[in-house]
């Protein structure tokens, strides 16, 4: 990220962005029986017996210009919602899970400081899925990248493959401290799930984004990037955003403004 590219690379008019929007509009057109209504229903009120749909692509916009120095609210909210022990409280900090972490960056030339949270980028072309020998690492229809712990063998190939160091292994028995909605356990790899349990419940938001908004920073915006009417799509149309390591061409579900 220190090798900052010219902003024009990732402005909404970049060829990649245009391709992305094009695909989204095509999907929307295919589904719009009652124009403009159908998609919103799919995104925010999926009945519990309906599988996740590829008409939706969950994504997040991180506005690094609003992310506050020293604030850790998103990280705390994630660990509370998902039941993982924060690094500071861990007996083995080097092994501690980090579904989301705060980074403070400084441009060596100008000394400008940038704050941002780093989490699984929910790649459309996820390297972690490519390398998994068992198929445990997979992308759900709605773009959320997950680990199926029933088939994960803990080989950690995916941790090596992920360009964003987004994944961690659970090293020790958790002794029934898990949240009922968030099963996780020893010997399996894990990462940010975009709060899949909340998404499936119809909350339409993640714990980190809720916490950021509650703290008044509004640096995180979660939503359906396939729905042209959604707040995130609107903001992505207006703001210049970047994908971290855009050169890898992974088509990320997390976009950053102000980096």
């Amino acid at each position, binding site marked *: 990220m220190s090798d900052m590219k010219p902003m024009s690379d990732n402005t909404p008019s970049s060829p990649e962005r245009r391709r992305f929007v094009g695909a989204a509009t095509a999907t929307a057109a295919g589904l719009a029986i009652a124009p403009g209504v159908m998609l919103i229903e799919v995104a925010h009120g999926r009945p519990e*017996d309906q599988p996740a749909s590829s008409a939706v692509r969950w994504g997040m916009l991180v506005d690094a210009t609003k992310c506050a120095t020293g604030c850790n609210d998103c990280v705390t909210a994630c660990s509370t919602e998902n039941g993982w022990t924060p690094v500071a409280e861990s007996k083995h900090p080097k092994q501690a899970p980090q579904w989301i972490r705060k980074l403070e960056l400084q441009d060596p030339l100008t000394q400008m400081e940038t704050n941002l949270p780093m989490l699984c980028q929910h790649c459309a072309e996820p390297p972690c899925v490519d390398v998994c020998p068992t198929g445990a690492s997979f992308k*759900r229809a709605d773009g959320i990248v997950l680990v199926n712990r029933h088939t994960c063998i803990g080989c950690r190939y995916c941790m090596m493959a992920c360009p964003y160091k987004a994944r961690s292994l659970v090293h020790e*028995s958790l002794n029934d401290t*898990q949240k*009922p*909605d968030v*099963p996780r356990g020893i010997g*399996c790899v894990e990462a940010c799930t975009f709060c899949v*349990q909340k998404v499936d*419940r119809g909350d339409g938001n993640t714990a980190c984004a809720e916490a950021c908004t509650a703290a008044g920073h509004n640096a995180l915006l979660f939503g359906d990037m396939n729905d042209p009417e959604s707040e995130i799509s609107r903001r992505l149309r207006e703001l210049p955003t970047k994908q971290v390591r855009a050169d890898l061409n992974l088509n990320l579900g997390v976009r950053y403004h102000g980096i």
Partner: protein
Amino acid sequence: MASKIKSLLARGSAVLTAAVLGLGLAVGPAQAGDAPKPVITKAVKGEQCVEDTEYMRKNHMKLLNVHRDKTVIEGVRTPKHSLKECINCHASEQTGSVAAAKEDFCVSCHSYAAVKIDCFDCHSTKPQGSAAMHSLNAETAHYKHKLASQANAKVSAEEMAGIAK
């Protein structure tokens, strides 16, 4: 089925006792037939399981496996056949869990049958948590309060807040 096992075991123990006596070995009262029987506590809520009880005894694992894949891979979260809903109904009133004590619902049978379960390496054994998950849960939120209060030290303030929500 349980009664059949019981009678088989009783017959087995009779044969064993006879053999032991026949050999003239001086042992105390025969223990072979007295393996501790599983304690099958009635579910906290509801009268009838989602399937026939006899069917569930033999096949619950098959149903759980199918539902597991639908939930993890497709995101289908129906309560019927979900492990979470098993736990919601069957958590013990004493421990608030299906697997914390020897007599809790899952552990009791599984140790009798000598089948190791690893569900609870990852899954919580307790029903507390988001009551908003599905309608059945919302209806039984008051049970969760009851269970949570009995599990005393194991429930954090946040979890209680989660229930209230």
